[in-house]
Structure formats: structure tokens, C-alpha cells
């Protein structure tokens, strides 16, 4: 970092630096104002106040005036401060199944990263593609996608980034090589994005959405059901993405032998797999099988992941300090707050009231709801954290679903998958931001293929909802 002195006139500097304070004051004033207002017809006082807090949180998540986890904490205590529920009850919502499931998944992913197992897996997968330029693009995408099945996509991107940088540096001696490097970074980022849709582990947003489903509709989606539901989307998008990258950006280099040499060197540096790595691989396989065969609810899935974490430390595979440095603790705080807020909205009937009075009258069919929710999610997620988008959109969608005759599971499938489909802007997802940080990508060069991916992703989602989800017993409409 370096210092820069803002030499603009002081009033402008003050406005630029302190605009947050008047906005915070306005939020507080709005909360105070609505606290003293009578509720609209059909809504209880508690429901009205819960809705006020929800709208304040939506505003804070969208503007990111506060860090996302801090808004999560605000969501946890604000309803109690406004007298909606007792504080003790609000804090108890933090102990939701999804929070512990996510905690376990994050710790396992951190162990995978710190042990070097994920890097070894990536190197082996990449090595298979180091024979031709197109094959290497495919293999980078496949490696990113496959690893995103079992780790959060941003962890995969962070882990693969140095490998792709080393390969790119070797190949970037010519303009053709530099152009090819750009394709490799996009393959890495979009591979992560697409792979992250496939399972509940790619991004913690799916467990969050499933938790909302359990709390608000009393239903659940298992690990296997989710992956089955997403299977056609992942296959289609992966294939299309590979074709798009290799056709849109002309690949003019003839050989990637240099990359092969680099990968050989990296693999040699890794040495033989340690006992800890082998144990971790076995543990991970058992955990995934546990989720597939016994993961009927998020509570059981959470128990399985926590059990795996305990075994991880019993056998001293990693040290706690290593985990501490590599877990996104903030996401857990944010989820705790979001889950608490959704439960309060449900228990006070505020969500239902809002949906029935402000949204349902304008919807003509269940399909209209699916289209609106998916488009809204995909648009928001380009600018907002996808977890924040899920926290905002899923409770609204679930509140409306029953009224318009839509299976609530469709809301979770549609919103949670759409929230992963972000390809354009660096702030959309860490995987894309990491790819931009390479310096090889410029938004103007990415915008066209990314927009094509965006449209195709939405189309694929709609076709899957129309033809595949009914096969799994999830129908849109009667």
C-alpha cells in the first residue's frame, strides 16, 4: 500500500469520507420512526418491526455500509432492541444447523488447503492436460470445477491462482502467449463458478438457503438431491464455457510444453504424499459418503462435518492455528444473523404479509415468480456477495411460494444456483476477483463472453427447471 493525499476541496473530501454517517443516521431515524408508527392492516406490531429490521438489513447488505458479517450481527440484535423477541431467543437462532454445517465445511476446506492435498490434486489434474493448448484450458477448467465440488470456490481459486500464474509466466513471452494466459485465468475463474454450483460444498450459500427452507417451509433438500438437481446445469455450462473460451479467444500458441515442465517441477517439489494427506483424503471421502447416504437433514450433515473435524484434530492432521488463519469466520457470523432474521420474519408472519400484499398481486403464475427471482438474483449477485443475495432473496421467495402454488424447493434451487452464476464483475465473487488480479484480464475484453455465459446460464437454469426438476419430483405449478 502507498499513501495518497486527497487534495480536493475540503467540503468534497468530507462528503466523500463521511457520507456514511448521515446515511447511518437516516437508517437509525427510519428505525425510530417506524418503531413509533402503527402497523399496516393485517400485520402485527412485532411483524411490522421485524419487517423494518429486514429492510434495514437489506439496505446495509446492498450498500455494504457495514461489512457483511457486522450487518449479520446487527440482524441478530436489532429485533430484540425493537422489542420483537427477547434477546436470549434471538441469540439462540445463531445455533442453527446450517451454521455448524458451514463451520465444519470451512474447517475441512482449510485443512485440505493447508495440508497441500488440494494443491497436489490440482497438479495431478492439470498434468493430464499439459499436452496441447486446448487440452490445458479444458484441464484448468475441469480442475477448478472438480475441486469446487468439495471446497468453496474462492478457496479453489486462491489455491490454483499461483499455479496458473507460474504457467502463464512461462507462456507469456509472446503476444500469443499473453492472450492464451488470459484464457487460462478465465478458465480457472469460471471453472470455479460452475463447479461451485454442483454440490452444497462449493459455496456456503446452499446450506444457508436450505436452512431457510427448513425454517420457513418445514422441508429440506439433501446433499444428493441438490447435486442431482444441478447435474444438467453443471454439465451444460461446463461444456458451453469450454467451447466459448476456445472459440471466442483465438488460441494461437502451438505448444504448452513449458507448462508441462513447470507442472513436473511443482509435482517433484510436492514430494510423496504424507500420511496426513492420505488420512485427510480418506476422511474427506468418508465425509462425502456420509452426507450422501445419511445426510437427510442439515442437522445430520452438520453433525457429520463436525465429527470429521474432530477426527481431523484427533489424528493431528492440521494445527488449530493453521485453521484459524484460513477460515472465513465472517461468513459464519453473517449466516447466523441472516438465519435469525428469517426465523423472526416467519414467526411474526411478516414475510407472508409482505409477499401477499406487495408481490403476489402482481404475479400471474408460479413461472413468473421463478423468472423474477432468478433474474433478480443473477443481477444482484454481479454486484453483491452471493451469500448476501441468498439472505435477501430466499426469505422473500419462500414467503410467496405457497401463495402462488410454487414448490418452495424450487425457490431454493433457483435462487441458490443463480446466486453462483456471476462471471463479469470482480466484486461478484472472489474467484473472478482473483482472476482479475492477475492483470491479464480487462473488463472490456471479458464483458462479451461473460454476458453470453450469463444469458446461457439463465436459459439453462430455466430449461432445467422446466424439464429436469419435475423428474426429481420438484414441480413448478400444479
Amino acid at each position: 500500500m502507498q499513501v495518497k493525499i486527497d487534495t480536493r476541496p475540503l467540503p468534497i473530501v468530507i462528503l466523500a469520507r463521511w457520507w456514511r454517517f448521515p446515511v447511518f443516521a437516516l437508517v437509525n431515524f427510519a428505525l425510530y420512526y417506524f418503531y413509533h408508527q402503527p402497523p399496516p392492516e393485517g400485520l402485527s406490531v412485532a411483524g411490522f418491526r421485524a419487517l423494518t429490521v429486514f429492510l434495514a438489513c437489506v439496505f446495509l447488505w446492498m450498500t455494504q455500509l457495514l461489512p457483511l458479517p457486522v450487518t449479520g450481527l446487527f440482524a441478530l440484535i436489532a429485533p430484540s432492541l425493537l422489542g420483537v423477541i427477547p434477546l436470549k431467543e434471538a441469540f439462540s437462532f445463531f445455533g442453527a444447523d446450517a451454521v455448524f454445517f458451514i463451520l465444519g465445511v470451512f474447517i475441512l476446506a482449510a485443512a485440505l488447503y493447508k495440508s497441500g492435498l488440494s494443491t497436489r490434486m490440482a497438479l495431478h489434474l492439470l498434468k493430464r492436460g499439459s499436452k496441447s493448448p486446448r487440452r490445458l484450458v479444458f484441464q484448468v477448467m475441469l480442475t477448478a470445477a472438480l475441486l469446487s465440488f468439495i471446497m468453496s470456490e474462492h478457496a479453489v481459486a486462491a489455491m490454483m491462482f499461483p499455479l496458473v500464474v507460474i504457467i502463464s509466466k512461462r507462456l507469456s513471452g509472446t503476444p500469443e502467449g499473453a492472450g492464451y494466459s488470459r484464457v487460462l485465468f478465465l478458465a480457472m475463474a469460471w471453472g470455479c463458478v460452475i463447479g461451485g454450483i454442483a454440490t452444497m460444498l462449493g459455496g456456503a450459500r446452499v446450506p444457508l438457503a436450505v436452512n431457510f427452507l427448513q425454517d420457513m417451509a418445514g422441508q429440506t433438500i439433501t446433499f444428493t438431491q441438490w447435486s442431482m438437481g444441478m447435474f444438467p446445469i453443471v454439465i451444460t455450462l461446463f461444456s458451453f464455457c469450454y467451447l466459448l473460451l476456445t472459440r471466442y479467444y483465438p488460441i494461437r500458441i502451438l505448444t504448452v510444453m513449458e507448462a508441462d515442465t513447470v507442472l513436473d517441477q511443482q509435482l517433484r517439489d510436492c514430494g510423496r504424499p504424507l500420511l496426513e494427506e492420505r488420512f485427510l483424503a480418506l476422511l474427506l471421502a468418508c465425509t462425502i459418503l456420509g452426507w450422501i447416504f445419511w445426510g437427510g437433514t442439515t442437522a445430520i450433515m452438520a453433525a457429520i462435518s463436525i465429527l470429521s473435524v474432530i477426527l481431523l484434530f484427533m489424528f493431528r492432521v492440521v494445527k488449530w492455528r493453521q485453521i484459524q488463519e484460513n477460515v472465513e469466520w465472517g461468513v459464519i457470523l453473517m449466516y447466523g444473523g441472516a438465519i435469525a432474521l428469517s426465523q423472526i420474519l416467519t414467526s411474526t408472519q411478516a414475510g407472508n404479509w409482505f409477499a401477499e400484499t406487495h408481490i403476489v398481486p402482481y404475479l400471474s403464475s408460479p413461472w413468473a415468480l421463478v423468472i423474477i427471482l432468478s433474474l433478480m438474483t443473477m443481477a444482484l449477485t454481479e454486484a453483491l456477495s452471493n451469500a448476501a443475495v441468498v439472505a435477501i432473496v430466499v426469505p422473500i421467495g419462500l414467503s410467496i411460494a405457497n401463495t402462488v402454488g410454487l414448490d418452495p424447493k424450487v425457490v431454493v434451487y433457483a435462487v441458490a444456483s443463480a446466486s453462483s452464476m456471476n462471471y463479469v464483475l470482480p466484486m461478484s465473487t472472489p474467484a473472478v476477483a482473483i482472476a482479475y488480479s492477475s492483470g491479464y484480464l480487462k473488463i472490456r475484453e471479458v464483458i462479451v463472453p461473460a454476458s453470453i455465459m450469463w444469458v446461457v446460464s439463465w436459459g439453462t437454469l430455466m430449461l432445467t427447471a422446466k424439464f429436469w426438476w419435475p423428474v426429481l419430483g420438484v414441480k413448478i405449478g400444479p
Partner: protein
Amino acid sequence: MAADPNLALLKLQLLFHGIRAGNDLPSPLTNPFGLIHLALPEKVFVSVHLNTNGTESPFMLRKEGDRFLLDIEGKQSVSVGWTPPLKSYQKRTSSGLLVSDILTVHGDFIAVHPSHQCRFGRSGLSCRYCGSSKELSDHPPFTPRDLVEAIHLVMEEKRCDVVSLSSGHVDTPDGGVERLEKWVTEIRKHNNVLISLDLVPPETNDWIDKTYAMGVDALYYDSDFFNPNDESPREFQKHKARQLEALAYAAKIFPTGAVLSHLVVGLESLKDTFESVDLLIDRGVVPVLAYFPPYGGSALRMRWTATPEQVTPIYAHLYERLVRTRINPHWVQQYDVVLTSLEGRFLSPESPRYHLRLKNFYETRTGRAVRFGLASLRRHLRVREVPA
């Protein structure tokens, strides 16, 4: 009955002639550097050299009852205040260093040379900031921690608003910024004072940004003289051009009036000094006109030509130009070894009412807190960290 003396002229004359000591004066009369601290009427502070080598001076300090009087040859005596030498000079820090070996107090500011390299000292001239150059070079080395303690000891006895650190002569691209950073950090951490640095202009402007960001409130790039019409070697011209460029850039970064440059009156022709003053003010820089005639009796004194009466128009011009350009002259409030730009008001017909009010306010406890708070707030607002 003779008219009251002009206080600005009187201060310059005292700096020029020194002073003789009458009878019944307290002991010790001078500070460790041989200077007597006097307060002339209207809070005009001056540190005068005590002539002990038989050199004549038209001024004599004497005591009459509880009062101190300044006798002026052929004129009416002036009642003055005498400030005893700081007792804290004789105190020691926890590491055993004498405070007077670490710093020198001038009016409301504390001068420190952490590197023991005073430019005047190196030139062989005796330095009125830090006392004799020989003594300064003999001072034991001290650490930022010692300095912080010394500042505490001084401030227990006397209110000081500014600590001025000098980098001494440096030949590095940063102009001495990095060398002083740890000192600034330590003072910021422990002392509630404004900090000014006396540096060499750096090679690039990003060092000026860094200087402000690290907690420096005012900045000196000393010119000493510009001699604008001089046709010196190209290298020197290049150096002067960079100096002016750095000063102009710093004036955009620091608060108004907080970028200063010493001009030594008497080293070049008075016409050139006038031009130099304009050159600096046009760039938003406040010239601090140092009038340092060599002490009477020295060989250099024989060659000194600029008398106090001759140089007063420059001070008047400086004050008037600052008022007209609305550059804040308050960064140098009480400077007892030079006639400050604000004290130039005694030589000018321009009304000093606004600046006097502000000066008086800044000398109150509240004013001091406001001044310090505004400086910190400005830095908080203007400094940003951006990716390299």
C-alpha cells in the same frame, strides 16, 4: 519624552547588537547557550546574546525592584519580562542524558537535531537554534524515547506547541524523511504537540505525501537564499528549480501556511531577498526571514553589512503579502530567534486585528486544542491508502 520604540525594529536591533548585563541580575541569567530570554511588550519574545567579551551594545538589561528594564542608549527604558532559563534543561532522562543535550526551546517551539548535523554548525557559523555547533557535535547520541521524555520534562515547565525536527544534511532520494520517521512516530504516540520537519527537498513528490501522512504538521525546505538573478552553474540552478517545485507541491499537500522556508536576510542583496520572498509566497510558501548577524567581536561580523534599519522593509513586505494572499502566518507564532512574519505587523500599516485575535486564541488552552484537533482531522480526511 521619546516615543515608544517599534517592537519589530527593537527585536532586530537586539538580535544584531546583543545585550549587556547590568547589576543585581539573577543568576543564572542565560540559558546553556548564552542567550537571555526576554518578553518585550505585546508578547514579542526574543532571545538575546549576552555580550560577555567586551563588545559594546546600546542595550542593557537591569533590574529595578521586581521589574526588569531594558535601557536603550539615548532613549526611554522599556519594561520587559525576563524568563529564567528552563530548569528542565538541567534535568536528566531515565537514561541519564541532559535535556539540554537533546533539545533547545525557542518561544513555543522545541528544536531538535536527532542526527547532530546542523547546517549552520557545519558551515562554521554559530547557530542560534542549537547553540554552539561545537557543543552540538559533542552531544551524546539519544534515542526517540529519550526525546519523548525530554519533551515531557520541558512541557511540565513550559507550554510548547511545536516540536521541530531537523534531518541535517542528507544526500538520499527521500530528503531525510525515512531517517526522521521513527522520531515522528514516537512523538505522535506520546506527546500532544504539532510536529514540523526541516528537510532537504526529496527527489520525488511521493515522499512529500509520505511526510504528511506519517504525522508531520508543518514542513521546512530551507532555501537560505535564492539569489534569483544569479547565474550560477547549471547543477545549482537545477537544484533550485527542484527546491521550488517541491515547495509548491508541498503547499498543496499541507495546510495553508504550513510549508515554510528559511531565507537568511543579509546573505544576498536586499533586492534579491525581496524577490525571493515573492517567489515563495507565489507558491503558497511562507518565508521565515532569519536575521542572524554574526555575534559582535567575531571576524565575520566585520563583513556583515545589513543593519536592522535596512532590513525592516522586507519584513513589512512579507507581512503585507501574506495578508493579501490569505496565507496563514500562524505556524510560526512565538519564535524568539527570528522576527516572525506576524511580528512584521509592527512595520506595516495593514490592520492586524484578525490575525491578533487568532494568535491570542491559539495561545489559549482551547485554541491549542482546536489547532491540534483540526490538524489531526485534516490529516485523517486527506490521507488515503491506495494499492501500490
